[in-house]
């Protein structure tokens, strides 16, 4: 088998996964069992297709294999019940087999959305929603997901099966949420995809190259959501935010996985195509009105990405966007970022003055980013002693190795620059 062929069939499988699952759930109703059956069908295809070639109608092939699996499962469940109850079932065995295949192509697109709503159900914890989404909609195997999150496969399998149990208990059917719930459910889906992106972004530096690329997976799924909901500004905004952030991937880590902050990155390494696509997306979304938080964050990322040099950054415009964001939500992390923008427009002292009360906010007081920001602004203000003290406080609070290394290096440089 050639690599190109196997990666083609892998790609195809991942694209087809939610469509196949949608069809099987429609036919049998049991989401949990259908999801298992589709996983098995995907695994069979993953070994067969690269060697024997992709079938003429791969979607129908997968549905058939999964359906057979479901029927076998139902049959043995019936047999089990018979044995247990010693009662003859009145349903003839042939009525249990091979139901007509769902070939209704028009519903494919809706199915993906329905599955996303289901997997991102509010009854689930974030981590189980993430895991289930990656498996049921993303078509990843449990082993791949476990590997991506660096937990044992057995633990991930439990997380997924618990998630499915909770969905069952919640009584959520395979149908679109009511008009009233719809916005809230879309928000939940976007949040889960954002978390997947974040997880991938956090691990994209250096040592963890072997992990499934969650960043690309999040972009792929968000692209699908945007395609299904083209008029949803926040779906477009989130996709743009991901593209504009991921565009800097090659520049954000050094050869040893060390962290390179935005203001020190080699901008020629940024991905122009991703920046252009993200910028066009966000421009179009914002022009339609109804601006939300993802769109504003994407617009800020676009302003960073459009600056060929650090000093070309349009900080007043970034500050204006942070003002809007701050009005929209009371997140102290936004206030922190806004203070940095203020410092870039009005000088480091103005930024420091805004950071001071934030240090008394219990949600932020122990957060390394607050102390790192104070360190950077103190350094810019020429207060070396305060900068060192703040960077030390940040290093003590950071739970990220590359970041702590960056801070320690910063302290060492400042301390020896006498």
């Amino acid at each position, binding site marked *: 088998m050639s690599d190109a062929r196997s990666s083609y069939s892998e790609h195809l499988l991942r694209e087809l996964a939610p469509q196949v699952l949608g069809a099987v759930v429609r036919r049998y109703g049991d989401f949990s069992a259908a999801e298992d059956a589709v996983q098995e069908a995907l695994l069979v295809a993953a070994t067969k297709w690269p060697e024997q070639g992709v079938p003429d109608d791969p979607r129908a092939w997968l549905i058939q294999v999964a359906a057979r699996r479901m029927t076998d499962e139902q049959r043995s469940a019936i047999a089990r019940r018979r044995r247990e109850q010693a009662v003859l079932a009145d349903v003839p065995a042939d009525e249990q087999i091979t139901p007509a295949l769902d070939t209704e192509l028009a519903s494919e697109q809706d199915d993906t959305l329905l599955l996303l709503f289901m997997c991102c159900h509010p009854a689930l*914890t*974030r*981590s*189980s929603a993430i*895991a289930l989404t990656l498996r049921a909609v993303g078509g990843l195997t449990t082993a791949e997901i476990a590997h991506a*999150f*660096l*937990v*044992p496969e*057995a*633990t*991930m399998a*439990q*997380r*997924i099966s*618990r998630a499915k149990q909770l969905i069952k208990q919640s009584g959520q059917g395979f149908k679109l949420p009511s008009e009233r719930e719809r916005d809230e459910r879309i928000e939940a889906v976007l949040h889960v995809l954002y978390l997947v992106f*974040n997880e991938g*972004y*956090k*691990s*994209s*530096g250096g040592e*963890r190259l072997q992990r499934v690329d969650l960043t690309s997976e999040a972009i792929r799924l968000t692209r699908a959501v945007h395609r299904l909901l083209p008029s949803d500004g926040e779906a477009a905004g989130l996709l743009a935010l991901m593209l504009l*952030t991921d565009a800097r991937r090659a520049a*954000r*880590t050094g050869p040893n996985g060390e*962290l390179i*902050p*935005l203001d020190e990155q080699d901008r020629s390494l940024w991905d122009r195509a991703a920046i252009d696509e993200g910028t066009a997306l966000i421009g179009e979304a914002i022009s339609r009105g109804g601006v939300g938080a993802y769109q504003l*964050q994407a617009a*800020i*990322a676009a302003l960073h990405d459009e600056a060929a040099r650090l000093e070309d950054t349009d900080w007043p415009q970034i500050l204006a966007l942070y003002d809007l964001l701050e009005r929209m939500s009371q997140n102290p992390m936004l206030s922190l*970022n806004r203070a*940095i923008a203020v410092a870039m427009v009005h000088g480091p002292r103005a930024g420091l003055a805004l950071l001071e009360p934030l240090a008394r906010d219990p949600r932020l007081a122990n957060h390394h*980013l607050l102390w790192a920001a104070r360190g950077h602004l103190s350094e810019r203000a020429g207060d070396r002693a305060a900068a060192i003290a703040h960077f030390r406080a940040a290093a003590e609070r950071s*739970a*990220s*190795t*590359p*970041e*702590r290394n*960056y801070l320690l290096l910063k302290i060492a440089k400042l301390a020896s620059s006498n």
Partner: protein
Amino acid sequence: MKFMLMMNAPRGTGDWGVQNWSPEDLKAHIGFMMGFNKELRSEGSLVGAEGLAPPGQARIVRAGKGSAPEVSDGPFAEAKEFLAGYWIVDVESAEQAYGIAARASAAPGPGGKPLNLAIEVREVMSGPPVEP
């Protein structure tokens, strides 16, 4: 977020306090630990867990002057506590990790009474965060 939960046990009068427990108490303790690990796995939070061999077998190793490692008995006969075992859990907040640690701390000891052992909770370092 991943956390390491380190269970520190008192050194006891002998080499290892557990050696003086009754078989029933020991069985109850082992049963608790096995059940606890199973619970963590089925909750989807267990990354790993190990119990460590008794401290009497511990050795302190340093790079020697030649090629051979420099091994000495250890550690620290005067230490009041020693590391008996650890868990690594993957949870969504520090509070959840504290909750799990408290459950571990309630492991039964002599007479079935909760041991109330000290569990040290430390966050495991991760990748860099997302920049604005």
